């Protein structure tokens, strides 16, 4: 990738848009941030570098918007950047993480940051860009720790534990303590909340070399009234489902399993046919426009060259495609 933009540029991207986080290659320091305007069908690449005159870092993992700032978690650079949502200029940063993965805002004064290779969830004060504490996760140590995505229902934040883990945590945001946990299948990789206040997660399942032997991947629906598994849908052995996403109404969930799949949250069985079929693609990231219901799927191509994002109407009709950075893996919607 050529870094030839020179001095920082001034952006003025007001209005609705979609951030695309391009992981880059692990240890290559070539993560980038792209921005797409869905009304104009136009994309701007490397906007973090162009706005700030510095690289984003190594492995851009996720992004969350809160209070007019975009919070970009750069995993292997151990940093969370706060950027202006219109100019993309850095407004602050938080360091001191082991391997940050996702950030969730409890309110204006407190956010949680999950981590890999650490048994602690970090508590931060976003006003001061400071780490203020930790939530210790039981039955994990420094090397086996893994906490991932977070969703909040009422006063509780729920967290899926991924790498070599098999549980969903329940955190009381008033005490910053884990008050319950639920065992699911091997390596729950993503987490969403539907309109009926139910959690959905997908587990990787395991191959023959896993610690507990082979296990079929599955989709779980978890009822939060009793924090118990309500329904479980098995995929086929060898399937690789991941990247669970949900529409704006919380009525349809989407995931990648080679193809892109869509299922009503009231369905009693897995869908028979995919919404979007793969075509020598490596689908790596997925999001649904919370307003239009359009589906965006990122193709990592070969993890080496620049990736492609495909945009589909809710019916599965291709309406746009655009080139982004290397290994596009996560999205973040700016709603206004």
């Amino acid at each position: 990738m050529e870094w030839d933009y020179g001095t920082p540029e001034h952006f003025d991207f007001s209005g609705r848009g979609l951030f695309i986080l391009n992981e880059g290659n692990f240890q290559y320091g070539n993560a980038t941030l792209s921005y797409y305007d869905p009304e104009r069908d136009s994309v701007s690449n490397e906007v973090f570098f162009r706005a700030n005159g510095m690289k984003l870092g190594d492995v851009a993992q996720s992004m969350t918007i809160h209070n007019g700032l975009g919070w970009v978690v750069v995993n292997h650079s151990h940093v969370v950047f706060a950027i202006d949502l219109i100019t993309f200029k850095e407004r602050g940063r938080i360091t001191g993480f082991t391997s940050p993965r996702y950030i969730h805002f409890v309110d204006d004064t407190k956010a949680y940051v999950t981590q890999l290779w650490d048994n602690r969830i970090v508590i931060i004060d976003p006003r001061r860009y400071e780490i203020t504490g930790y939530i210790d996760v039981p039955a994990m140590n420094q090397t086996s720790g893994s906490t991932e995505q977070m969703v909040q229902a009422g006063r509780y934040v729920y967290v899926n534990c991924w790498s070599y883990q098999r549980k969903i945590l329940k955190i009381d945001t008033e005490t910053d303590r884990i008050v319950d946990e639920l065992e699911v299948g091997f390596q729950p990789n993503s987490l969403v909340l539907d309109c009926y206040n139910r959690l959905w997660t997908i587990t990787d399942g395991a191959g023959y070399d896993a610690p507990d032997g082979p296990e079929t991947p599955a989709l779980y629906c978890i009822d939060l009234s009793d924090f118990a598994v309500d329904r479980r849908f098995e995929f086929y052995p060898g399937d690789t489902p991941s990247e669970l996403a949900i529409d704006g109404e919380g009525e349809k969930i989407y995931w990648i399993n080679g193809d892109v799949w869509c299922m009503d949250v009231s369905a009693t069985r897995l869908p028979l046919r995919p919404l979007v079929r793969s075509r020598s693609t490596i689908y790596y990231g997925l999001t649904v426009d919370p307003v239009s219901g359009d589906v965006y799927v990122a193709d990592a191509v070969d993890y080496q060259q620049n990736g492609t994002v495909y945009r589909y109407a809710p019916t599965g009709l291709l309406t746009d495609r655009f080139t982004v950075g290397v290994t596009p893996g996560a999205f973040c919607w700016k709603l206004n």
Partner: protein
Amino acid sequence: MLMLVVCSCNIDGEYEALPKPEIRFDHDDGIYTVKVGGTLTLAPDVTNGDDARCEWSMDGVVVCTGRVWISEWPEAGEYYALFTVTAPGGVAREEVRIDVLAATPPTISLSIPPGGITLLAGSTYTFAPRYQHQDMEGFSVAWYVNGDKAAEGAEFGFRAQSTGHYRVTVEASNIDGTTVKEFEVTVVDSMPSKVTFMPLSYFEDADVRYTVPGRPVSVQAISSGCAEGDYVWSVNGNEVACRGSLMVYTPEALGDYIVKVNASGAEAVMKIVCVNAVAPGPDGGSGSEVDVVEWVPAPGQFIGETSSIGGMTSDIVTRTQAERWATARLKSGKFVSLGAWGGYLTVKFPHGVTAGSGQYDFAIKGNAIDTSNEPGIVWVMQDVNGNGLPDDEWYQLRGSDFSAVGVSHGKAVTYYRPGGARMDVEWTSADGLSGMVAYIGGSHNQPFYYPAWIEPECYTLYGTWLPSRTVYDSATGQWSNPPFAWGYADNLGSDMIGGGDTQSGLGQWIGFSISNAVAADGRSVSLDHIDFVKVQTGVMSSGGRLGELSTEVCGFTTDFGVLL
């Protein structure tokens, strides 16, 4: 909003809503499978369906009117059928998927070594093939010797007292069909002596070597029956002192040298042709453009891989197609995989590479990272006979572990084509090791990891064997391959050239010096220039779900200016 409610009148003259019909299939997931040519009966339960009209349709075309649909499926594929119930209480619809599967008779994978099987009279040899689809109904295996049934069961212990040739047939059956595999067993009173020479490469297998006066040629004899120390060598009829299987000979004058080896009575003959070397091209050796002149990978997850990461196409089935693809692939800077141990790629520098006074003469680009080093042994050859072919003499570039404990030079590993798709590839080594190149479906789903352009049912690769450094951390579940110190492609050693670093996304360049060239016995060889470079996977190892260790190369260059 106007709502239409279907009602019926009860006996009191009051109206109540009729219940809507409901459909229930006996397969909760809505997926039915049937074999090609098979018949499928779909008979869903319908409740509240009195006086209902039932209908099956596919792509909008009605294929059955009635609740029960009996259908035949002549072609494999994925089909969808919509079942619609129209009743006084309303309309209900459910879709089902019908997966029509190809017939799957058993497959038989039996590793018959090169040259067939020869046994001593009265000894027993147990054949233990690997089968696919043996969990299907009616699976059975029968064994025949010269047409007569000899045994039943998955394995067979062959034994014969009389010498001669025996035709052995294994016949595996299941409900979908029968698969037969035949081979010959030769029974002898005493094992025959046989000796051959290690070929220069898979495709350059003529027993001729070219060199120049004063430059050694390594001749490696291969014999199963001769002990090290019992070999007798001669050159032009004059016996030489060597008694090992490796003889390194240095002709001092121009001419032909006839090399003969006697191994326990068996003989083999080779010719060394000593010539004046053809001078290098006028450009003296500079540039990054190379032509792939041989690509013989060992089986591996990227061989035949047609996804965008592998980039191959299923119509690459000949040597020419494979080499053309690999040349274009390198030109675009993308990796070419060499597969498991022994797989190699040979490139020709059109203008040669001059041995200079600098630290390095050429560089090879790989894609190693800290935890994933897949070292490739590097060999060089000068086109001394000037015919443009890599048929002269290979010299290994000494690396840090050339003489280390566990390193084996002249190793021979044979890979066997699996009998069916999506199977592990079996390998055996001449010194008694064996294993599998694992099929890792879900990550690399091409049917075969065995190269499509290798026609025989098995092939043998020769080279230098480095001991595996693969480490599995059970706490983190991470596999890692730490680097070797220096001297290997696709390995983050001390010879990684600054500037072509891991920060730019270009991958790393490793520098190599022609002055490190050695003959097979380790003696240094002086080369003023070379024309061919060969990179060969140096380690046989597997990282669980990550699959086999395989060296990858992304480019070659002599133009160090572009790297800095």
